C-alpha cells in the first residue's frame, strides 16, 4: 500500500461483504416464499423481505464504491486522503443509519414506520428501491456529500488522472440523481417518470462510469499496460454509455402514460446500450493480452475479465432481450425483468466490487497477492457464484417465457395466480441455484480470513 490512508477502505469492504451475505439470505427467504406462500407469514411478509433484499444490495454496493474510491483515489492522486478521520466517521454514520432502517423494516409494519418517521411531512416512502424514510434519505445525502468532499479535495490537491476524473463524475452524478428520490408528486405518471431518473440513470448511466473507472484502475495495476491506451478505452466506453443510456431511459416510458414517441426513442437508443458493455469486454481482454507483467494475483485478473463478460451478458444481452417496445409489451413486469435484474446487478456491480476487493485487500494486508491455496479458493467462489447466478437467470427466463405465454399471449389468457402455480418448478430450481450461490459467497469470505499456521506451507 503506497499511502497509509488507503487503509480506511478496509472497513468499507468488510461492511460491503457482510451486507452482501445478509442480502443473499433474504434472497433465499424470498425464493422460498415464491413456492411456499405462507413461509414466515405474517412475521416477515414478502414485501418486507424484498425491501431488505434490494436495499441491502444498494447499500453494500455503495459501501463498495466508497471503499474503492478511498483505496484508489490516494494512489492515483499521489497523496494521502484529505481526511481519513472524516472517512471513518462517515462509515459509522452510514452503517448505523443503514442498520436502523433495516431494523425498522423488520421490527414494525411499514405503515407504522411511515408514521414514526413522519412520512407525511415529506412523503417519499413506498416506491420500489426508494422505500427508506426521508430521514434515512437525508442521511444518505449527508454521507454522500462528506464523501465527495473528502475524495474531491484529494483529487483537486493532487494529481488528476482520467481514472479519478471519470470516477468522480460518476459519483457526483450518483449523488445528484439521488435528489430526485425526494420528488414524489401525486400524479402517478410524473412520479414514475422521475423515479426512473434515479433508477435507470444510475445503473445505465453514472454507475457505468464508476464501473469503468474501477475496472480501468485494476487493469492498469495488474497488467502494467500504458495509461494512454487505457484512458482512450475509458473515454470510448463512457462516451457510448451516455450517448445511448440517457435517451435509452425511454425504454421505461412505453406503458406508463408517457407519449407514444418514447417507443421509438426508447427502442432505438436502448438497443444500442449493449455497445459500451461490449467495448468493456474488448477492453478487458485486449489489455490482459497485452500485459507487460505477470501479476501474482491471478484471482483478481479472473474477476476483472468476469466482470466485463457477465456485465455484457446480464445488461447487454438480457437487457436487449426485452428492450424493444413490441417485445416489452409482453414481457413488461414479468420474471423476464427479474432475470435481467439479477444477472445485470450481479455481473456489473456486485462483480466489480468483488474485483477491487480481490485486488486491494491482500495489499492492505501487506502482501501483493494471497497464497496459492487461498487464491484457488477465491477462484472457486468466483465460479460457484457466477455459474449459479447464470442458472438463476436461466430458470427465471424459463419461468418468464411461460408466464408471458400463458398469461399474456395465448388466445385464452389465464389469471396471474394460476400461472404462477403452473411454473412453480422453475422457482424451486431457482432456490436450488440460490443455495449454491450462497456457498460461493461464503467461500469468498473464507478466502480472505487469516490462514491457520502451517496451512500455507502445506499447500
Amino acid at each position, binding site marked *: 500500500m503506497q499511502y497509509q490512508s488507503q487503509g480506511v477502505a478496509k472497513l468499507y469492504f468488510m461492511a460491503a461483504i457482510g451486507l452482501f451475505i445478509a442480502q443473499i439470505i433474504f434472497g433465499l427467504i424470498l425464493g422460498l416464499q415464491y413456492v411456499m406462500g*405462507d413461509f414466515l407469514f405474517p412475521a416477515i411478509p414478502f414485501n*418486507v423481505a424484498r425491501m431488505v433484499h434490494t436495499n441491502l444490495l444498494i447499500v453494500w454496493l455503495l459501501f463498495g464504491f466508497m471503499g474503492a474510491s478511498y483505496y484508489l483515489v490516494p494512489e492515483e492522486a499521489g497523496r494521502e486522503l484529505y481526511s481519513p478521520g472524516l472517512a471513518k466517521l462517515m462509515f459509522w454514520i452510514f452503517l448505523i443509519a443503514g442498520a436502523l432502517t433495516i431494523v425498522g423494516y423488520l421490527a414494525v409494519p411499514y405503515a407504522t414506520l*411511515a408514521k414514526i418517521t413522519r412520512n407525511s411531512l415529506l412523503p417519499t416512502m*413506498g416506491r*420500489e428501491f426508494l422505500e427508506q424514510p426521508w430521514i434515512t434519505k437525508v442521511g444518505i445525502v449527508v454521507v454522500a456529500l462528506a464523501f465527495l468532499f473528502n475524495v474531491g479535495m484529494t483529487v483537486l490537491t493532487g494529481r488528476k488522472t482520467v481514472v479519478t476524473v471519470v470516477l468522480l463524475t460518476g459519483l457526483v452524478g450518483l449523488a445528484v440523481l439521488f435528489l430526485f428520490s425526494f420528488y414524489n408528486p401525486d400524479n402517478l405518471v410524473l412520479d414514475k417518470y422521475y423515479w426512473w431518473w434515479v433508477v435507470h440513470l444510475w445503473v445505465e448511466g453514472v454507475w457505468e462510469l464508476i464501473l469503468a473507472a474501477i475496472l480501468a484502475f485494476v487493469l492498469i495495476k495488474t497488467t502494467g499496460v500504458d495509461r494512454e491506451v487505457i484512458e482512450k478505452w475509458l473515454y470510448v466506453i463512457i462516451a457510448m454509455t451516455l450517448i445511448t443510456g440517457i435517451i435509452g431511459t425511454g425504454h421505461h416510458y412505453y*406503458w406508463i402514460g408517457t407519449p*407514444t414517441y418514447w417507443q421509438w426513442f426508447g427502442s432505438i437508443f436502448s438497443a444500442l446500450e449493449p455497445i459500451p458493455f461490449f467495448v468493456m469486454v474488448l477492453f478487458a481482454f485486449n489489455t490482459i493480452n497485452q500485459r507487460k507483467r505477470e501479476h501474482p494475483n491471478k484471482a483478481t485478473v479472473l474477476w476483472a475479465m468476469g466482470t466485463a463478460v457477465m456485465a455484457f451478458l446480464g445488461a447487454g444481452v438480457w437487457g436487449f432481450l426485452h428492450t424493444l417496445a413490441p417485445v416489452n409489451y409482453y414481457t413488461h413486469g414479468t420474471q423476464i425483468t427479474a432475470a435481467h435484474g439479477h444477472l445485470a446487478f450481479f455481473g456489473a456491480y456486485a462483480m466489480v466490487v468483488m474485483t477491487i476487493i480481490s485486488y486491494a485487500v491482500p495489499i492492505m494486508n501487506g502482501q501483493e497477492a494471497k497464497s496459492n491455496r487461498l487464491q484457488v479458493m477465491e477462484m472457486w467462489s468466483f465460479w460457484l457464484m457466477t455459474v449459479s447466478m447464470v442458472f438463476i437467470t436461466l430458470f427465471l427466463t424459463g419461468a418468464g417465457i411461460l408466464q408471458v405465454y400463458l398469461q399474456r399471449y395465448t388466445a385464452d389468457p389465464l389469471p396471474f395466480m394460476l400461472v404462477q402455480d403452473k411454473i412453480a418448478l422453475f422457482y424451486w430450481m431457482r432456490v436450488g441455484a440460490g443455495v449454491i450461490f450462497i456457498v460461493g459467497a461464503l467461500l469468498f469470505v473464507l478466502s480472505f480470513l487469516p490462514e491457520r499456521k502451517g496451512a500455507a506451507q502445506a499447500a
Partner: protein
Amino acid sequence: MQEIFTKSMARNIYYGGSLFFVLLFLVLTFDTHKALPQRDNRANLTEQVAAGKRLWEENNCIGCHTLLGEGAYYAPELGNVFVRYGGKEGIKAFIQSRPANGIPGRRSMPQFNFNAEELDALAEFLKYASEINTDKWPPNVQG
C-alpha cells in the same frame, strides 16, 4: 491505427455526445410535460385519489404487486384491477377479506385493517390508475 483515433478525439466525443444527449433528453422531457395532460388522467386526480396513493405507498403495496408493470412480480398487476374486478366494490371486498394469518400454502396478502374511508380512497386510486392512457397495456385483462 493508434494515431488515427486519438485519446483527445475520444474525450471530445464523450463531452460533446453527453452534452448533446443531456440537452435532447431535457427537450423531450419538456415536451412530455406538455403532452401529459391529455394522457395521465389528471382531471380525475382528486384529493381522495391523492390520499389513496399515500396509503398505497405507506403500506408498500408495490413490494408484492406491479402497478403499470413496475414493482414486484409476486402478486397480480393492479394497474387494471379496476377493470378486472369491474368496479370498486370487488376490490374493497378483496382487501377487506384477507385473513390475518394468511392462507395456508398460498401466497398471502396481509390484513391491513383499513377503515371504510381508507378503502374507498385506495379503490379510487386504483380506478384513477386504470384510466391512464398506457397505449393499451396490459395486453389483456389478466394484467
